[in-house]
């Protein structure tokens, strides 16, 4: 059997974001045409731009083994760990025109280098460490069972590269929002059986900054180079809020709970009823849009909602399967 490994090459046009905050008023894009080999990763291209074309081109790199998170950038809008991402895969995905950009254009210092202060501030804000009274002279090891270690669900593999954070549309729009990486860190320690923090879960359940503002788009799950699935951790933090009894009686929480109530009543959702339950009297702010929808036949009155057939089955299952309390 042949073990020959054939290296192939192909022409790629790179459109590279350039900006020097000390000199430039506006960013611009520089074009570089290169022959790319099937062996290369994106970081090799960044190196070649700097070494062969323009020594002033700037980017971060360190471990080259996908464990330090320094070299995260965007390729055609996709957050990417440059040292891990194969050029072949990029070309297969996007074709031979590739746009190289920093993780966040509005936070650029120079070329691919961004100011990650917001990322670290949010990371700090979730108490990203174990809170526990430590016996300085323990009689035995502080053992964690494999089952309890499994509960971390690999959240401890996060390398803080920022790929998910700067892929998150809610982070882009809401400067208070902690973002997926911070939530993954919050989950990592909240799920640790040794942790005794009393504030972390409350912090990540605050409106505007917390898990309730997640738009559920799964961009973070796609972007994560370590396959940590941050949105999965966000879902678990939601559930913890209910389990720990710290879920507040607010719009976001009632919105989640309202689904169970509506399903119990009709099987299908009563959309108007859900909004009323979630918003309470504040529902009046929706009236102008609701009126327009009504005139277009887009709103079904409460008496017009079709119930699921075999509703008794659904109601029985809701009663017997549900343990969540609010």
């Amino acid at each position, binding site marked *: 059997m042949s073990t020959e490994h054939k290296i192939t090459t192909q022409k790629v046009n790179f459109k590279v974001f350039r900006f020097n905050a000390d000199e430039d008023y506006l960013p611009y894009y520089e074009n570089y045409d290169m022959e790319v080999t099937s062996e290369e990763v994106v970081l090799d291209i960044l190196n070649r731009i700097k070494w062969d074309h323009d020594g002033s081109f700037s980017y971060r790199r360190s471990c080259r083994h996908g464990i330090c998170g320094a070299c995260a950038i965007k390729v*055609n*809008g996709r957050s990417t760990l440059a040292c891990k991402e194969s050029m072949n895969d990029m070309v297969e*995905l*996007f074709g031979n025109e590739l746009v190289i950009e920093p993780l966040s254009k509005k936070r650029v210092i120079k070329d691919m280098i961004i100011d990650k202060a917001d990322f670290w501030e949010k990371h700090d804000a979730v108490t990203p460490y174990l809170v526990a009274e430590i016996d300085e002279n323990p009689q035995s090891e502080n053992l964690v069972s494999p089952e309890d270690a499994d509960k971390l669900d690999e959240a401890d593999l996060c390398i803080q590269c920022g790929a998910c954070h700067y892929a998150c*549309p*809610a982070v882009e*729009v*809401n400067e208070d*929002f902690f973002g997926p990486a911070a939530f993954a860190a919050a989950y990592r320690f909240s799920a640790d059986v040794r942790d005794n923090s009393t504030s972390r879960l409350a912090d990540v359940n605050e*409106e505007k900054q917390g898990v*309730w*503002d*997640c*738009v*559920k*788009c*799964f*961009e973070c*799950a*796609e972007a994560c180079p370590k396959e940590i*699935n941050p949105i999965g951790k966000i*879902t678990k933090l*939601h*559930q913890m809020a*209910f389990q720990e009894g710290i879920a507040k009686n*607010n*719009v*976001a929480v009632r919105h*989640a709970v309202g*689904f*169970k109530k*509506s*399903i119990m009543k009709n*099987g*299908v*959702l009563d*959309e108007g009823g859900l*909004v009323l339950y*979630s*918003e309470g009297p504040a529902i009046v702010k929706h009236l102008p*849009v609701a009126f*327009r929808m009504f005139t*277009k*036949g*887009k*709103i*079904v009155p409460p008496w017009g909602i*079709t119930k*699921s057939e*075999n509703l008794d*089955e*659904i109601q*029985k*299952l*809701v009663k*017997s*399967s*549900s*343990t*969540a309390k609010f």
Partner: protein
Amino acid sequence: MEKLKYALFTGCTAKQSTPEQMMSTMAVADKLGIELVELTEASCCGASHLQDYDDFLSLVLNARNIAYAEKHGLTMVTICNTCQLNTAMTKHRLDNNEELKAKVNEKLAEVGLEYKGTSEVTHFLYAIIDDFGLDKLKEMVVTPLSQFNIAPFYGCHNIRPSELQNETHKSVENPYNPTSLDDLIIACGGETVDYDEKNKCCGFHVELQAPHTAAVLTGNAIAGAMDGNADWMVTPCPLCHLKLDTQTAHASEAIGREVELPVLHMQQMVGLALGCTPAELGLNHHLAKVDFV
């Protein structure tokens, strides 16, 4: 070709806030000769929110919905991206975890049901592309949409997480470079508009709790399509449709620019190409006026 037949999971909006989606689904199915058996026993999928509160209940209810498709011996077809995600995610979890499947089936047994894992789950978009076939659809087009620039808006839950969407339909597409909706537009004779926001979030799921975030995302999506010279947008997701069609005033205010475009359900677009009448497709139900037909 043997007549295609699916178990239709309508979701909730098709029976309430997007009645035109139900109308156009049935009209297109009729034109294509696809038989849809409506799962009238189905409950709400939980819409990505119920599992935040009660994950196990969400699993049980979604498993029950699939169990009804299994009773018919049919592939389940959804017409909502979020229904698609929640149903496919349930199937993925149960098919890969015997212990969890047994726990769910313990509950379903209380009402005489069992989840076996025998029915596939797909979206009507992928049923048309994968099973019916775009070539065959092209042959049936009687009113090519050749005068229109159409902006596809994919909606998150059909394309992410990619590991799931790749399980639920045969034409594997990439979440960063999706093609299904573009292909459908081309098959209908239209021109596709390429714009950055086409595979981004519309903000629907935080409409109530984070209205500013939601409005900016909606505004950016419509603005992107407008800047791409789109005549109208098309989406396979009724939740995206609701956000893009009904929230333009908030979106305009949030991004400081007047934005509005007609936003058609993908079934309406296909229906137009197949010669259905605007009334059959419910085009009069939109807030952003559809004035090109």
